């Protein structure tokens, strides 16, 4: 067994796990944070995207052990109490989700990207989402949601 100690959504969490445990299953099954979904096993769909030290990673492509000592944010950590994160608000406002399965990954990928580029163009957002697949929305309202969130986040900071 391997000891893994991480900060998840601001709280220190630790556990002994099999060395082969993937980060996505460590989050879901060991820590009970089931908001992060697994979709493809090949790092293709991006449903499992979380933030590792603030940057998006696909948690099915990492071992839990590799996250030892680092800071993680999952979809459960995005809202502050009842106050949804601007991305969560904008996905709702713009019908950016249907079945919702890809949504946590989309939001985490977008959160990471908007930190890098706070005022992206539509083309920028589409390119940034290349690693996240959605089968319901045709991406149109996801892209719209992210552009809308970028606007409201910029407004909030101004």
């Amino acid at each position, binding site marked *: 067994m391997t000891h893994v100690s991480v900060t998840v959504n601001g709280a220190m969490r630790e556990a002994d796990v*099999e060395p*082969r445990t993937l980060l996505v*299953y460590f989050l*879901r*099954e060991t820590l009970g*944070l*089931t*908001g*992060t*979904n*697994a*979709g*493809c*096993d*090949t790092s*293709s*769909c991006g*449903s499992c995207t979380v933030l590792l030290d603030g940057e998006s990673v696909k948690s099915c492509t990492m071992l839990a052990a590799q996250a030892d000592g680092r800071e993680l944010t*999952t*979809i*459960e950590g*995005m*809202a502050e109490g009842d106050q*949804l994160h601007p991305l*969560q608000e904008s*996905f*709702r*406002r713009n*019908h950016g*989700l*249907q*079945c*919702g*399965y*890809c*949504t*946590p990954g989309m*939001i985490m990928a977008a959160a990471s990207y908007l930190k890098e580029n706070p005022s992206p163009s*539509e083309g920028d*957002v*589409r*390119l940034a*989402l*290349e*690693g*996240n*697949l*959605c*089968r*319901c*929305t*045709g*991406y*149109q*309202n*996801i*892209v719209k949601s992210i552009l809308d969130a970028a606007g409201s986040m910029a407004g909030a900071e101004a």
Partner: protein
Amino acid sequence: MATTETFIGQPVLRKEDPELLTGHASYIDNWTMPGMLWMALARPPYVHATIDGIDTTEAASMPGVVGVYTATDFDLAPLPFVWPITEEIKVPVHYPLASDKVRFNGDAVAVVLAETREQALDAAEAVAVTATELPAVIDIEEAAKDEVIVHDDLGTNVVVHWSHGGGGDQSVFDSAPVIVQERYVQPRLIPNAIETRGCLAYGVPPVDEWTLVTATQIPHIAKVTLAGTTGIDEHKLRVIAPDVGGGFGSKLNVYAEEALALALARRLRRPVKWIEGRRENYVATTHGRGVLHDCTLAGTEDGTILGMKFVELADMGAYYQLLTPGIPELGGWVYMGPYDPKAYWFEFKGVVTNTTPTDAYRGAGRPEATYVIERLVDSFARRIGKDPADIRRMNLHPPHEDAQTSIMGLNVDSANYEPLLDKALGLVEYDKLRAEQRDRRERGDRTQLGIGLSTYIEMCGLAPSNILGALRYAAGGWDGATIECLPSGHVIVKTGTSPHGQSHETAWAQIVADGLGVSPDEITVLHGDTHSTPLGMDTYGSRSVAVGGVALHFAVEKIKAKARTIAAHELEVAEDDLEWADGAFRVKGAPDTAKTIPELAVSAWHAHALPAEVEPHLNATAVYDPPNFTWPAGAHVCVVEVDTETGATEIVRYVAVDDCGTIINPMIVEGQVHGGVAQGVAEALYEEAMYDESGNLTTSTMTQYLIPSATEIPAMTTDHSQETPSTTNPLGVKGIGEAGTIAAPPAVVNAVIDAVSHLGVTAIEKPASPERVWRAIQEAKGDGRAGASPGSEGGTS
């Protein structure tokens, strides 16, 4: 509380979203129970083989393994198949586990239970199967030759032949001035719901009651059929569809794993959970399409379509799943498209192969039909040198407000097609694009412009039960709705539909809100649980609003009839003196004297002073069997740029104009169109399930099967301003879930062909990959380079 606001037609934000956005959804893999075991299946690496032995010894001895089971350990009936479409149909027997032969990549021969997910998967790998490999047959035309037989007991691979029987004068197919004959191939597609399948079976052993929580579109149908397969009494079986991460037809089924999980939970008296891996999903969950059509269009030199005839060969896969041969039959009713041919013919043969079973995939038969119709109409236009928009306009069926019997024999509820085409052409600026196309062609530009059209109809609202009966389908097509008005003012709606992204909680609340004069915020919609919402036929075939939504309307009417009686009693007026206005029963001429539904719900609940004949509690159930199908229609235009040097296609504009009848929530309708078009674009340009010569699926993960991302799917312009009400139901609704997937593939492929048609290209098959486009250009040039590959120095010129 009561409200005078109206909600139908408004873009009400979704009730579903808060849980989904914050990571609190109830997808099946989020379920866990004390004492739960994990199930994994052993699927040996064969395509077609006789099983000589299955050795489970090593697997059984591995850490955490509780048991390893093969077919002989179970007493299960075959998996359900509910649509024996002809009397003569040959039905392959399909048990949950294979015991004599492996017939496709996904066939399982053993099932493992272990304490953890990983232990179960490891042990499944260790099940040793000895088998004698047989030649496999993958191609449908090869399979139809019967040189390799998939099911020995059937004696042939051609298991079903269904003919529509035709309509009109069939002689036009020989004698018309213009005869266009083409063959179109449509490859297999993998549905790819982002959530794979999965289930959890658990029970209350002392009373032999069992629950299956499963990622399904059809909990109600699953309950009835799984009772048959497992032998659990139907009244002791409960099926729950939790939040489901997409379906697209792939979860419109009843699968081996669901039966096995139930059987094992019952046997071990412990909860049993199974979650499908993605590679497993690609071989063990149904595929779509996999058809080829020989098509004939009879027409005149001036462009009139006289007749359309289609003879199809359809790949069933190695077995039937729930509906398999019914899918091409379903398409068999729309081969006239939105046109008005005087002669009609459709027939198909279903062929079994050593591949994953096919079944419904978004559109189910109608995309296959629409693709070949729209390709054929474009070929006709090219043949006689006319603009494809003009040919469509002159052949569109005339409008009608009432239902009319079509050439294929069913009643089309209402129609008004030409304004849809005009709107689409206007939005895309068709004439301007044609001018630009001419300029580019004259200049000989490397990047050429193509414009593709698709005018379509679809048959939704599945389905009138009497027609389903005539078509030999085992079940009905009705749906149920129960409404309960609680004394708190809250309203509970129980629907028989089972959404998995379609926003029923929101749209159904809008329908009931307008009906009862309450806010959608005060309405909770329950669905997908055979205990709490027992009356239903589930979600598929764009049926939910047109059947389940309409059932709500009738339940509302029943509630209101009862509420009116109570209101009249309390207000001491005759019922006829009351009118429903602004969300309340009001005394005619004295509108401030009124009773709202929440007020009447309190009266009905305490029942202190009800009229003598009125039962306490304000609740009602309606079961609605639609008298007809519904027939949405639309016109889509795709504009592409094709690089004639590389064959690469880019969609530069996409316009979707759809008429789905009355719209409940335009935001949801638009979202359905976006997603449908994206899946259609994927089908047209990227996706294809491919097999090697031995029959192994080579596109076996998402890294090989090209699901487009946001960079490949274009921005779309949608319009749904035309709402031609359905005459089938009082809401006027038709359905929109599949329209995009039906319309888009031919619009895109027609555009690609159009871009290079001046080079002599007349045909490119799906998916129109750069390689296919490049080869088509080289072949049209006839310069002997057809055998070379793009970018190579090859060629003999």
